[in-house]
């Protein structure tokens, strides 16, 4: 077999799989829808300066079709989705799905879903990798490698026992006064907070530069993270994609939606069929090795459709996982009446961990203090008329923050992906069925109770009725379906990410994870994808 691999998807898994393969002498062809967003504007302007300098600030910040306007719905989202990032979720024509108990998001952008991530980098520890067919020691060199590639800032602090420390950790970003105040109170009261709430606190680990690197300046604290870092200080996979383009052995085929692969009589993949989005034509590309890195849902759809085309079998794949998330707004009474800095890092700078006797059940929370942001989503969520709510928001603005709580998920039979053939066998739709575990409400209530107590110790209150449990699928931390395992079995993958059903198929994304800890998986996706590409060498 020659050293050629075709990679589907340019998200965090795809680009780091491809980069590792290219560095090891493989020729890589990448197939991708690859939608791109507009270039950044006024890269030196702060958020307020941007409003002054743009000819049409409403169009930029709210969108031509008001995509960034958050109107009252049953869902209490506190951030509007930035119009400049709409391309990430702009689906190809004819794309459709059916979902029950799950609200999926699909990315079609160059760089994938991590083009809109908040850059949290949390290595899984041995307890969290217990269900995986390898341990932290196997993944550790790849966390080091990815940290070196993307630049991760942070500190070795009380969160370190729950987030193993990797090499190349850059100094942490500067704290805004609100975050600094919270951390200072925690340092004074931490023995009590740890004892009574089982909570620890420390600096977030984020892929945002605190020191200059070639081609990427350190964070300028412009307060524009949500609209897309204009200086690339905040890492996104499209930065690694640009690195891929420098390799002679790299070929990129954008504007192509991968549909299914074809098998030879021996069950080996011989080609992949895709649809050109510009012409609508179907193209067939020869395959020696295929690496699916399109994200759990899209990769699973390709596998399901391929089996349907090859054998007529309508397979159901169990084990879909996602992190349930809760948003818990808080008011820090110590910050009332203080000014809000005009320039700051917009995303989370602090993390809180809710510990458990079973270390795999650790719950990670990201703490974001309110700095620059559009405030109308907060204003209309308050239980007052808008003018009164605006006055209250202005008075409390420096004291507001939100905690994003992640909950773990486990591989369960009842959460499935299959194909719906209602629109005909040529137009199968992905069917997603998800049911949360029976004990979920109890676990969420217990965790939020501990969080509220910890926040109270920090001098904060959680306004009643403002906490919000996001729908399943909202975190976009999808995993499961084709799990890595030591024991052979149908619809499983080897510890090296190789499919046990198709010998030249590698699964390089979250679809192979047999467990989903309560923390963002993106850093582990990248590390695992690089690990798999390195093992493909053998």
């Amino acid at each position, binding site marked *: 077999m020659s050293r050629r691999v075709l990679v589907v998807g340019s998200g965090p898994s795809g680009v780091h799989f491809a980069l590792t393969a290219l560095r090891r002498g493989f020729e890589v062809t990448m197939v991708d829808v690859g939608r791109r967003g507009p270039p950044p504007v006024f890269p030196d302007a702060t958020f307020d300066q941007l409003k002054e300098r743009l000819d049409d600030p409403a169009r930029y910040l709210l969108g031509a079709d008001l995509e960034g306007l*958050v109107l009252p719905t049953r869902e209490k989202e506190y951030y509007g989705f930035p119009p400049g990032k709409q391309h990430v979720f702009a689906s190809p024509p004819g794309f459709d799905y059916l979902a029950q108990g799950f609200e999926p998001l699909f990315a079609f952008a160059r760089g994938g879903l991590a083009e809109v991530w908040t850059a949290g980098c949390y290595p899984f520890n041995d307890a969290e990798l217990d269900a995986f067919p390898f341990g932290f020691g196997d993944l550790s060199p790849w966390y080091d490698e990815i940290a070196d590639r993307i630049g991760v800032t942070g500190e070795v602090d009380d969160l370190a026992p729950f987030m193993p420390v990797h090499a190349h950790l850059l100094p942490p970003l500067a704290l805004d006064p609100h975050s600094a105040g919270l951390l200072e109170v925690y340092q004074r009261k931490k023995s009590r907070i740890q004892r009574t709430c089982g909570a620890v606190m420390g600096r977030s680990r984020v892929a945002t530069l605190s020191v200059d690197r070639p081609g990427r300046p350190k964070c300028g604290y412009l307060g524009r993270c949500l609209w897309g870092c204009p200086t690339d200080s905040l890492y996104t996979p499209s930065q690694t994609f640009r690195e891929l383009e420098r390799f002679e052995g790299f070929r990129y085929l954008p504007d192509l939606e991968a549909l299914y692969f074809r098998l030879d009589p021996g069950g080996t993949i011989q080609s992949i069929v895709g649809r050109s989005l510009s012409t609508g034509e179907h193209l067939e590309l020869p395959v020696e090795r295929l690496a699916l890195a399109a994200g759990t849902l899209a990769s699973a759809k390709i596998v399901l459709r391929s089996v349907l085309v090859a054998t007529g079998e309508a397979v159901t794949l169990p084990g879909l996982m996602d992190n349930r998330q809760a948003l818990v707004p808080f008011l820090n009474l110590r910050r009332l*009446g203080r000014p809000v800095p005009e320039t700051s890092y917009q995303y989370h700078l602090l993390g809180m961990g809710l510990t458990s006797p079973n270390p795999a059940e650790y719950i990670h929370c990201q703490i974001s203090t309110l700095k620059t942001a*559009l405030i*109308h989503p907060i204003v209309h969520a308050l239980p*007052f008329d808008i003018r*009164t709510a605006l006055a209250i928001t202005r*008075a409390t603005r420096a004291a507001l923050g939100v905690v994003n709580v992640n909950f773990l998920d486990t591989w369960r039979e009842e959460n499935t992906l299959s194909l719906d053939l209602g629109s005909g066998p040529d137009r199968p739709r992905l069917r997603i069925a998800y049911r949360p575990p029976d004990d979920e409400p109890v676990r969420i209530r217990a965790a939020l109770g501990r969080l509220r107590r910890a926040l109270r110790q920090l001098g904060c209150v959680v306004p009643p009725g403002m906490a919000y449990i996001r729908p399943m699928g909202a975190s976009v931390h999808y995993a499961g379906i084709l799990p890595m395992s030591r024991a052979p079995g149908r619809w499983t993958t080897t510890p090296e990410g190789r499919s046990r059903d198709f010998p030249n198929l590698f699964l390089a994304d979250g679809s192979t994870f047999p467990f989903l800890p309560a923390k963002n998986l993106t850093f582990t996706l990248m590390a695992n994808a690089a690990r798999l590409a390195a093992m493909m060498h053998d």
Partner: protein
Amino acid sequence: MSGDRALLDLECRTFARLFTRTPPNDYLLGSYAEAHRNTGKFDPTDRFDPWLLRLARSGSAVARLGDGYARFFAPRSLLRRKLILVLSLVEVTPPYYHDADGTASSSRVRIIVALAFRGLVGVAIAGLGLIAFGPVHLVVRMAGRRP
């Protein structure tokens, strides 16, 4: 100026007065009108919607009262959606944005007293709104249920 545009300008002027002392400039008025052209986000959803909006156009005090009522009894009403639109435009548009996204710096005690006062005002507005708009809303809803 078309009749529709004149009405939209009137709404924008009336509602903007709730959030900023400076009258809306051409950009703000134009953005408000444009928002109605491009999306279906500002279509009425029931018969109460246009009635409440018509009253709210008559002045910012009435609009505030209607909003206080709608916050609890018609949270997705047309009036509220339009008020949120104006606020979102105010907060991204110079020279108004500091009126929306600025902070009120003061001592903690003063802020707490001010918050308590604001809260009472908010409750009073919701109560007055309930008296003023509740009966009509009830009648419209019951009429809507009749076969």
